[in-house]
């Protein structure tokens, strides 16, 4: 096979992946609901808006109270896709509000940083639910692409504070999970068995 044919095949694979992605119905029940275009409202969020009415009202009015936020946060931890879509939408709205605000709102920034950590933790805990894990990845990419970067902080692999734009926390969690599974994770455990102490969970 020539390099030209190889390149064509890679190109075809990319096109095929694109077609698969484009062919997905974002409004399918039980799927992650992508963020809307500016000024639009996602139809696929209609059910979530009923379930988490207080959250949506709070996000849109800029007066999100803790109880409404905690309801969605708990549901995200429990693996509810509608809550994940709601949180993603809330993140998007709060990040835009923060980006255009004359004075940064410390409480809003803190909430977004907490949501970064929540998404990262939910990803780390979703090993037994590949569908939810894929939705978390999709949400992370969606937020990263659409919400403005705010210079948030999050914890890195060593547990230290690090600059964490948008959903970097989730991307780091994805990478860490990848490092701890598969052949690399098995080799890490083997090295830990042979030399004691260090294992996959303790990688920097």
């Amino acid at each position: 096979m020539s390099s030209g044919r190889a390149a064509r095949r890679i190109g075809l694979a990319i096109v095929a992946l694109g077609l698969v992605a484009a062919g997905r119905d974002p409004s399918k029940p039980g799927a992650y609901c992508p963020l809307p275009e500016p000024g639009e409202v996602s139809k696929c969020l209609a059910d979530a808006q009923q379930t988490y009415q207080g959250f949506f009202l709070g996000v849109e009015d800029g007066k999100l109270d803790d109880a409404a936020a905690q309801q969605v946060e708990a549901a995200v931890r429990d693996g509810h896709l509608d809550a994940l879509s709601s949180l993603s939408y809330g993140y998007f709205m709060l990040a835009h509000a923060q980006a255009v605000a004359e004075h940064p709102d410390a409480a809003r920034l803190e909430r977004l940083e907490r949501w970064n950590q929540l998404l990262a933790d939910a990803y780390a805990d979703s090993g037994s639910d590949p569908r939810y894990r894929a939705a978390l990845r999709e949400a992370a990419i969606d937020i990263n692409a659409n919400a403005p970067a705010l210079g948030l902080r999050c914890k890195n692999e060593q547990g230290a504070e690090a600059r964490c734009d948008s959903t970097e926390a989730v991307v780091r969690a994805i990478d860490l999970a990848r490092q701890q599974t598969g052949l690399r994770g098995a080799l890490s455990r083997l090295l830990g068995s042979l030399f004691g102490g260090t294992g996959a969970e303790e990688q920097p």
Partner: protein
Amino acid sequence: MSQSFPARLWKASLLDADTYEEVEADPTSIRQAALVVLLVAGTGGIGSWWLHAVHRGIPTDVALLPAALEILEPLVLWLGGSFFSYTVGATFFRGPETETDFAEVLRTVGFAFTPGIVRIVGFGLPSIQGLLGLGDSEIPRILLNTVLETWVLVAGIVAIRQALDFTTGRAIATYGSAYLLLYLVVMGLSTALT
């Protein structure tokens, strides 16, 4: 006429099947294949050490594990993956034209690691970003590593397909089975030694 080593590296990274056929037919290329894997292991080890011990200032004893993993993983994947690919591919998934030996698989799979040499750039990215004042985001490094690992995976499938002279579907099945078997062996060893 056979290609030079750099030309083989370039074509192998472009997934050129003719290059993998050439390597398959050239018994002397085993040294080059081994060199490719050693380069990937060496640059990975150095890169990981740089990132963890130098850039992040992590204590030496903690930074040792990821560096050792970077060195060990390509070697284990090459030797173990080639062995299981050969045993599974030449038996369960063999095609009508499959005619190979372990050394042929070792040679082609060794060249499939070529894109992995670039991983050292990924380990250096956080330092480069710091020098250029581009922040400390880990996303570029993670994305580059993911792309390179996927690239090596695809090259591995091409290498197995050419070494075992069968279809891409059989090569994917062989690669998947070999990876699973290798994973089970390493997991079994680590459990037995715990």
